[in-house]
């Protein structure tokens, strides 16, 4: 609860600073504020409180994932100074809305009531519609926001309808009461309840960008300003997958069999289609969009596997995925600045002109591929272990096949950077930005080598 309050205050403070015309104070204030709210979040560790009649439940799962969300946002804001350096217009609105989106995301990790889930999703989504269109002059940004808004509001309807049907059959929005109802059904679930459950799955699947509800993702990602795409690909995805995970594990663990097959199929299709389509993408940004789709498939493994291990597995996965993805987006920002596009050919010879940046991107992509000893490998390994423990060998084999396919597209930038000749352009990067990229790359290596820092927290 302190997390939500502190970030909200921070958002308001940012808007206030904007009104005071203190643009240069914004980022320092935000970064400091995020550090404070991380500290406040950690203080809730092991406290297991609930607020407002179980609307918000702050357990360790909520704290851990809130930390991942805030930390990812922190990393993204660290890129913002460079990204927006030439922009004349005031930025307090964009930053403020990002923080409000973060509030929605945190709500999605700690809800105890379906109303709160919906509130969180809407807070997040409405903020994102604004962010996707925040580059008003670019037609692609307008296209992105319109596409996202139309589909998003439609799918929010599904979600709400699902919640209503569940309420209609169980008589409550409260997760605990619903789980009591589920237990009392003893196998005979009213069709209305099941329909509600599947509508809820569809609504969440859209937010996570799971096949077949993923069609918006590549276009929206491509049109959205790159910094905010990084936000979408990490914070939003983590929040939505955690919301789904929380929902299933806290409420529906009793009826594992009813939804297991559905999620199994969704995961398999997401992994295979996400990776296969990723192979055919012409540029880095769309490629990262498909990479994020396929990674949501891997994260679904944790939902299906659903064991004490999968809490930890999902935490480790979201953390390593977020850091690697933000690193990749950090370099994507540089490439788009220098070349005006992000075709793979724009990266030719980057290793010769900008060795550090090339190294960081390589580490990030290798981590996403799952090559040891990087964080992405341990994440995948842990997830697969959780799944195999539950006997999901075939799903793991599909996931492995997906990893193998993903090599094809993750290697395209690496090949361009290391094996092609440079075209003379050198990326100009300031020291703080370089240091930030290096920090993230080292972090990927470090949590890969010392996974026990994160694994086993929950």
């Amino acid at each position, binding site marked *: 609860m302190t997390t939500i309050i502190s970030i909200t205050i921070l958002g308001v403070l940012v808007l206030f600073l904007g009104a005071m015309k203190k643009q240069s104070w914004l980022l320092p204030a935000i970064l400091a504020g995020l550090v404070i709210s991380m500290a406040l979040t950690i203080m809730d560790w092991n406290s297991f409180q609930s607020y407002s009649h179980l609307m918000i439940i702050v357990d360790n799962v909520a704290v851990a994932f809130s930390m991942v969300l805030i930390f990812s946002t922190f990393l993204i804001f660290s890129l913002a100074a460079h990204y927006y350096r030439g922009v004349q217009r005031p930025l307090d609105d964009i930053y403020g809305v990002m923080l409000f989106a973060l509030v929605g995301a945190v709500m999605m990790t700690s809800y105890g009531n379906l109303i709160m889930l919906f509130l969180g999703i809407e807070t997040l989504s409405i903020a994102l519609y604004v962010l996707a269109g925040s580059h008003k002059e670019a037609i692609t940004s307008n296209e992105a926001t319109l596409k996202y808004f139309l589909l998003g509001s439609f799918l929010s309807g599904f979600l709400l309808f699902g919640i209503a049907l569940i309420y209609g059959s169980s008589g409550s929005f409260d997760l605990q009461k619903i789980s009591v109802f589920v237990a009392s059904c003893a196998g005979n679930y009213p069709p209305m309840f099941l329909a509600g459950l599947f509508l809820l799955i569809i609504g969440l699947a859209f937010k996570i960008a799971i096949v077949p509800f993923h069609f918006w993702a590549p276009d929206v990602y491509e049109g959205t300003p790159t910094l905010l795409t990084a936000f979408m690909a990490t914070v939003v995805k983590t929040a939505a997958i955690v919301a789904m995970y929380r929902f299933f594990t806290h409420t529906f663990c009793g009826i594992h069999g009813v939804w297991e097959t559905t999620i199994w199929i969704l995961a398999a299709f997401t992994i295979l289609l996400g990776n296969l389509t990723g192979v055919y993408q012409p540029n880095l940004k769309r490629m990262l969009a498909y990479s994020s789709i396929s990674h949501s498939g891997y994260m679904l493994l944790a939902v299906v596997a659903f064991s004490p291990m999968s809490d930890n597995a999902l935490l480790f996965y979201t953390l390593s995925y977020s850091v690697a993805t933000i690193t990749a987006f950090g370099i994507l920002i540089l490439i788009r600045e220098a070349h005006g596009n992000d075709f793979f050919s724009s990266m030719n010879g980057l290793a010769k002109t900008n060795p550090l940046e090339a190294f960081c991107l390589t580490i990030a992509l290798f981590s996403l591929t799952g090559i*040891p000893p990087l964080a992405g490998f341990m994440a995948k390994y842990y997830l697969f272990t959780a799944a195999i423990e539950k006997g999901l060998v075939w799903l793991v084999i599909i996931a492995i096949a997906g990893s193998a396919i993903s090599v094809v597209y993750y290697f395209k930038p690496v090949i361009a950077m290391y094996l092609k000749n440079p075209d003379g352009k050198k990326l100009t990067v300031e020291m703080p930005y370089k240091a930030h990229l290096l920090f993230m790359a080292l972090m990927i290596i470090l949590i890969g080598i010392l996974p026990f820092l994160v694994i086993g927290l929950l």
Partner: protein
Amino acid sequence: MLTLLLIILPLAIALFLLTLKAGKAIRYVALAGTLIEFGLSVAAFIQYQTTCHCNLLFSAEWLVSLGISLKFGMDGITLLMVMLTTFLLPVIILASFNHSYNRPAAFYSLILFMEMALIGVFTAFDGLMFYIFWEMTLIPAYFICAVWGGNDRIRITFKFFIYTFVGSLFMLVALIYLYFKTPAPHSFDFQWLYLATLTPAEQTWIFLAFFLAFAIKIPIFPLHTWQPDTYTGSPPAGTMLLAGIMLKMGIYGMIRWMIPICHQSVQQWAPAAMILAITGIVYASLIAIRQNDLKRLVAYSSIAHVGLIAAGVFALNVHAMQGAVIQMVTHGINVVGLFIIIDFLQVRTKTRNITDLGGIASKAPRLAIFFMIILLGSIALPLTNGFIGEFLLLLGLFEYSKIFSAFAGLTIIFSAVYMLWMYQRTMLGKTNELTEKIQDLTWPEMAALIPLVIIIFWIGLFPGLFLDVALPDVMQILSFKP
């Protein structure tokens, strides 16, 4: 502790090299580093002979909740592989002295990184550590071959990467599956993995997963298609690392992990695997005869030679297994020697085409003599190292099946055909304008070859030391037979 030091030292030198400015100093630092590393492995060898083996075991907790530990140690087979690695690395670096690679710091640093990963693979006593190092060898190998390789290197190295990566991913699934079949509390420790209780069907699947990973690396027919291209397209040092050491990872993996874990399936599938391996011997030999590119010829001959080793592993008797172990060392020495000679020839004549060469022996007698010795080792002439290994392998195969050993024995005839014919066409005959003014070996070049020749004769004349080191562990592994 010594084992851990063997892993850390190359990594430390690799990182140190990256901090150096480009210049000649880098190669000397790399050479000195690998020589110190070799000294350490000799110390390990001596310690292994004299005192208790526990000194060489390093064990620390890593991920307790998942049963993964940092456990590295040595037994006889491991020791031979570590010795081979640390022995070949200085030779490979020394042989690379007449090339000036761009970005030498990165190049030599990757080679040392590779050494670290290879020693990790051989000394890992924990299943997941084995896998992690196994995959880690791939990164430096890929970059060495892709960045400093020849024409068409992008396509070739990518094929190589995909092939080996896919194979090892299935091994990962098998390892995780095995982990849950070990007695509770589960562990990746190899002793525990040996204890895993598996139904016959499970064993078959795990066997197939392991076999795929190892067979791609070795490579066994029909999974060899990445190999000739990769060997040809890689820079000389890369080829030597791949052919000399990296493919031994596959055979080593079979002996250390696959046979003890799923011995029933291994026995059941041994004839099939052997047919593949022996097909590969005949097939690759026939192709080797027709090659005009020296590097491709040796690449195909390598498929034939390791095919024999793989067949020997599946014979599952002491003779063949001992032959396999000694032949891993032997093949590493010989194939690196051959690639060094080819590299020296290419530096001098700018070509690898056999038809462009000829008459070199009269102009460069030292080169010709070294070539002859290594070549004779490779075709298994008595008194050279190749004879010991191939004799034991064929003896073991004969004990297993007379028909298989008859076909596998063809390798001796075939290798004599393509090797001697190659020698005849390059070294003997008339000189042409390319070979007219060829320069004989210089002292630094001889320095790379002399250690190889010493080992060739040492193993050929007194193989006892090498065979005895591995014998107890070979027996141990074969005792898992029901």
